[in-house]
């Protein structure tokens, strides 16, 4: 059993708080991804779990044992670094077996485990090569092999795909997921790429400014973000935020964006939103895919409106249209054949059943 527990973990560099007291429970065999913009404390958190950074406050436990003062070598963890950190003077076999050799594992056991890991990662024919003779993707595999061979309690990944080109990154992403399905070791993975986070994780931890904004499954984060930050960070292109007001007219709630544009609130949200009628600093959050070209429908929460398009970006399978509401640029995703053209008016449709109402003063999704 190797659950990882963080309790009120704090990291302070001189006077700067990098991590401000985070709590996190990672269950056995789980794949957790820490995601956030640079400087959010995600790498620091990972390095504290690894023991490469001392913690300034709180407790970290691996497999039920508090490891605050345990050096990295005794934590039974394995880490894959962004730049791989392979030993350049050792060949692939020596790189992978180094940890076991230090543990004085018998030679035949080492050999068996290295070959087994090499087989999982499809690098058997590279075992005699030096890291210099390998491509980026191959080095990445070797770095993972070095981790697998150790059979540790926890795998730690520190932005392992950042140094690869886009195509290889997607390929290795799948590879990492496959390896985790085979090996089933508790994994903590750090990335700034929300796509990586969404595709790999059992649960995603979104961090910002040294705190955890939200923990949840990729779908939870996407459909029910808890804060404006999560709503804006997860999803590409990012969610649109439009300042709005909530008004009550004839027993029904309406989101009013400006004098000309307002939409009725879906009936099932009326009770939830009623307390916010007339409150200032409200924002409507709507993902680009919920602003589409108009088409026949029977949905009660879809509403048509006319808009002057500023910019059109054809992506092939879809076309992004940009227009301005209340001084903010808003993005919508329309069918490539919908005839979107810049500087032309277009009939668009907003799907309010997927709306989010945000209190901009607290950043909370209501």
């Amino acid at each position, binding site marked *: 059993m190797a659950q990882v527990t963080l309790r009120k973990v704090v990291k302070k560099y001189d006077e700067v708080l990098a991590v401000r007291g985070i709590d996190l429970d990672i269950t056995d065999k789980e794949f957790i991804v820490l995601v956030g913009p640079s400087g959010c404390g995600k790498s620091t958190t990972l390095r504290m779990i690894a023991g490469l950074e001392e913690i300034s406050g709180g407790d970290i436990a691996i497999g039920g044992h508090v490891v605050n003062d345990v050096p*990295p*070598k*005794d934590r039974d963890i394995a880490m894959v670094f962004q*730049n791989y*950190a392979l030993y350049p003077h*050792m060949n692939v076999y020596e790189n992978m077996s180094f940890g076991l050799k*230090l543990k004085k594992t018998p030679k035949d056991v080492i050999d068996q485990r290295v070959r087994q890991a090499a087989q999982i990662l499809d690098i058997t024919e590279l075992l005699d090569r030096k890291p210099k003779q390998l491509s980026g993707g191959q080095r990445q595999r070797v770095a993972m092999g070095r981790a697998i061979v150790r059979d540790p309690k926890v795998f730690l990944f520190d932005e392992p795909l950042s140094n690869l080109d886009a195509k290889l990154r997607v390929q290795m992403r799948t590879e990492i997921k496959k390896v985790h399905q085979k090996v089933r070791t508790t994994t903590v993975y750090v990335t700034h790429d929300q796509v990586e986070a969404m595709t790999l994780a059992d649960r995603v931890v979104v961090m910002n400014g040294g705190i955890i904004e939200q923990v949840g499954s990729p779908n939870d984060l996407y459909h029910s973000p808890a804060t404006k930050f999560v709503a804006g960070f997860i999803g590409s292109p990012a969610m649109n935020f439009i300042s709005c007001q909530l008004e009550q007219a004839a027993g029904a709630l309406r989101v009013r964006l400006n004098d000309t544009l307002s939409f009725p609130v879906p009936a099932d949200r009326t009770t939830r939103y009623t307390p916010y009628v007339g409150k200032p600093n409200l924002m409507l959050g709507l993902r680009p895919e919920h602003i589409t070209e108009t088409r026949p429908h029977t949905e009660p929460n879809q509403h048509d409106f006319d808009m002057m398009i500023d910019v059109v970006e054809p992506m092939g399978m879809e076309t992004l249209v940009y227009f301005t509401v209340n001084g903010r640029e808003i993005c919508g995703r329309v069918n490539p054949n919908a005839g979107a053209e810049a500087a032309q008016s277009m009939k668009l449709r907003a799907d309010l059943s997927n709306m989010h109402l945000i209190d901009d003063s607290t950043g909370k999704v209501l």
Partner: protein
Amino acid sequence: MADIAARNPAGHPTQQRSSLHKLMQRKSTIAFLMALPLILLITILVAYPAGYAVYLATLNKGMTRFVGFGNFEFLFGRDTFWLVVYQSCLFAITAVIFKAIIGFVVAHFVHNIPAKGQRKWRGMLLVPWVIPPAMSTLAWLWLFDPSYSALNWVLEGVGLSGIPWTGEAGWARFSVILVNVWIGSPFFMIMYLAALKSVPEQLYEAASIDGATWWQRIWYVTLPMMRNIIAITALFSLIVTFANFDIVRVLTAGGPLNSTHIFGTWAFRVGIEGGDIPLGAAVSLFMVPILAVAATFILRDITKRGSEV
């Protein structure tokens, strides 16, 4: 080009000029021309004196007669010569080993000093190497002085007896090695420090996660990563130490009873002071084969490893 060739199918002058033109355009020609000043300088300052030394070594004492290997045969028969061979090796090898060890240890200390204070320490630690050795050795000479030795004064102060620093063969050898180590260690320190800084921090982090202790990190990461620098620095220092002159000359002048003479100082004693320049040249030529062997071994290892890493 095709045009010209077509118009002058058998035109010799044009062909000649164009081939000269071609020659001038070749990269190797340009490289040679650019390196020429240095080649000339080396020829004048190194190759000519070296050749002249070989020529001198084949003459008799009065430099009037060719004696072939006579000077070398004479040297082989003399005990002092073998003493100098032994002392040169002892001096160079011991000093280089200690310089390397001290340089390595001090480099680690300096490497671990926070960046802010590091420059200051680096500067101070370089001082022994920066002062002209003839001058700093004079200071050591006073420290070792039989009558006024500050070191002995301290030793006697704590109840020990004074040491004949330059007066007794064993201690005199110790003293010249000590001063050479003192002067030479900073060079090793600065080379090793540069090498240490070039080892990526993540390799140490990876090693500590792999379970390496402090000592294993040095053995499996630091030393292999620094191997080339260690070899080059040691070779370079071995050559310079082997050919040392000033420290021994100022500190002991080869004494007592030739017990601290090395090739450089003995060649000077025999050749200049003793007035037998051919014999002095023969002595100094003995450094060549010994150093050539060392250089070959170490450089071969570097090229081998250079192609790997």
